[in-house]
């Protein structure tokens, strides 16, 4: 753990992001999140809409000013950087957005969109710039004729490739991918996921991969963090979290995914109700009102992440019971058996 802290590429310490809603109080979008992202690692971040996944990404990118807490990049405090420092950081930290329609300027050609990072950072000009943009496009698999086109002439997959190319322009070390494949069709989705994996291998990148799709997260991540109402409730290695799920919310999420399997009827845990509002949350476990395991104590006592097994952190005091209860579940068996 201590070692992890030292070697982490990016680290947050009790990060908080509250939004003030006039007359109503504070919306706790991100509440006390501490996590590390190691070099060349992909950390998956899953949860329902409104749980604060994207806010974590935006705060790490410094698009939002954290209310409280600290962000470290290679051990250096970057919570409140100077303007100059911020520009320097954007070379190393980049973002790929969900919607490839609204994240590209519709009035610029792809060439000029991809030239921008080089121009802003005064990295190239003239013929050199042209060559660099060509090489960049080639790297992500865009044909050269695409460079002369406008975003509206491209389909979703190509557009997302442009978004990825733009993020890669300055050879970054860390990229926040905020639902990069959610808007795409299945066959295109596979192309983009493969591209992200290839780029990571080639450029030794670290990703924070935000998604609500558990199977995509499982496919791409080394470790997975599950978020609920602004807090991380479980974090572990990907294989661990999918075969030895310990938080009741993660269990419910996994059980909710429709699966292609025949012959084994599964008993699904269906959560009732919607995600409660993150306005002025009450003390006690935030998941307790919807939890299928909650007791009186849960409702009153705050739950904190604790390391229950090697590298496996859970914010639930009843994790042992969860493990016992889910041991015989069909979906869990299915996953374990196929792992062997």
């Amino acid at each position: 753990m201590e070692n992890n802290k030292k070697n982490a590429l990016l680290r947050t310490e009790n990060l908080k992001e509250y939004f003030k809603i006039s007359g109503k109080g504070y919306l706790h979008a991100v509440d006390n999140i501490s996590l590390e992202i190691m070099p060349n690692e992909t950390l998956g971040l899953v949860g329902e809409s409104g749980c604060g996944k994207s806010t974590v990404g935006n705060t790490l990118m410094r698009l939002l000013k954290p209310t409280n807490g600290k962000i470290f990049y290679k051990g250096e405090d970057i919570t409140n950087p100077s303007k100059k420092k911020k520009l320097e950081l954007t070379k190393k930290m980049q973002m790929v957005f969900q919607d490839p329609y609204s994240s590209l300027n519709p009035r610029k050609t792809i060439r000029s969109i991809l030239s921008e990072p080089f121009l802003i950072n005064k990295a190239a000009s003239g013929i050199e710039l042209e060559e660099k943009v060509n090489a960049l496009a080639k790297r992500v698999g865009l044909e050269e004729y695409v460079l002369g086109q406008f975003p509206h002439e491209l389909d979703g997959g190509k557009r997302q490739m442009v978004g990825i190319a733009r993020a890669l322009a300055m050879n970054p070390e860390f990229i926040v991918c905020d639902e990069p494949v959610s808007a795409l069709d299945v066959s295109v989705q596979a192309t983009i996921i493969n591209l992200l994996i290839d780029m990571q291998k080639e450029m030794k990148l670290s990703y924070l991969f935000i998604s609500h799709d558990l199977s995509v997260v499982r496919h791409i991540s080394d470790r997975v963090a599950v978020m609920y109402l602004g807090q991380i409730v479980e974090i572990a290695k990907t294989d661990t979290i999918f075969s030895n799920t310990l938080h009741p919310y993660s269990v419910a999420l996994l059980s909710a995914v429709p699966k292609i399997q025949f012959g084994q009827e599964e008993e699904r845990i269906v959560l009732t109700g919607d995600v409660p509002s993150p306005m002025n949350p009450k003390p006690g476990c935030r998941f307790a009102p919807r939890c299928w395991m909650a007791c009186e104590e849960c409702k009153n006592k705050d739950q904190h992440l604790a390391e229950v097994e090697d590298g496996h952190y859970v914010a639930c005091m009843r994790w042992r019971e969860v493990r016992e209860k889910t041991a015989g579940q069909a979906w869990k068996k299915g996953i374990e058996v196929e792992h062997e």
Partner: protein
Amino acid sequence: MDELLKISNLSVEYRSGGKVAKAVNNLNLTIKKGQAMGLVGESGAGKTTTALSVMGLLPENIGMITEGDITYNGESLIQMKEKQKNNIRGKKISMVFANPLSSLNPVFTIGHQITMVLRKHKNLSEKDAKKEAAEILKLVGIPDYRMGDYPHQFSGGMRQRVGIAAALACSPELLIADEPTTALDVTIQAQILELMKDLQKNLNSSLLMITHNLGIIAELCQTVAVMYGGEVVEYGSVQEVFEHPSHWYTIGLLNAVPKLAGERQRLISIPGNVANAQMLPEGCKFHPRCSRCIEKCKAKRPDMICLNEKHYVQCWEAGGRNGEQ
């Protein structure tokens, strides 16, 4: 089992500004009473157009049926007069739309919108209709004190339930659900799926489930039809098709989705783009993207062949294949 809905040789075109898009081409589908059928395919495959044709809701003067017929209980829906159709729509066949925010009327309370359906089709008095609307909302898990609320006051999942409640108000014989859970979170999706499963069991209604999520089909449906370029390229029982996919497009789709179990292998994407309805290729519509394309595929559209009584496929290269993938 009786045939409830039969779509035979249906072709639909969209015409606007001198351009013609062939959205559906010679499509055949049969749904039996009490059966749940899944319709899968990527965007632009013609899934929604098929549903709208059944409902008679194609955009006027733009979308038109150029060929084929749709019969419901033996009666042709296409030749039917609008007035007669209005008696079937919402009563015998109803539809749940992908986006509940745009399919509900924002200026009426949800209670009013459901009461309206009941008064029109069941000729109930205001009071009785209100009472029944409350019952139906309770069935989908919305308490009756929320009947006076407007659509914008509900969350996405709740809104979709209102959409489902409105569609189920008259206990339809056929429910068409067009991507009913795409805009929702997995946990809410699970709630909606359980609800639809229960309803199908209790009311013995038929279901046409349109989705791109193969998992949903596996859970909810007995039969599945895979669409590409406005055609059904493969259909059969869900287990048969998913365990022994025979069209190269179906195989591609199944390979392209990351799995929740098993080893994490590199995904195999399908090269190229979804067929453009404005310039569909000759022969098999999938041939420009197919790894097994032969000369015959480019020239001639394959016929639907029967692999066994539960499995049909439209591919020249599928017949002689023995389980290889």
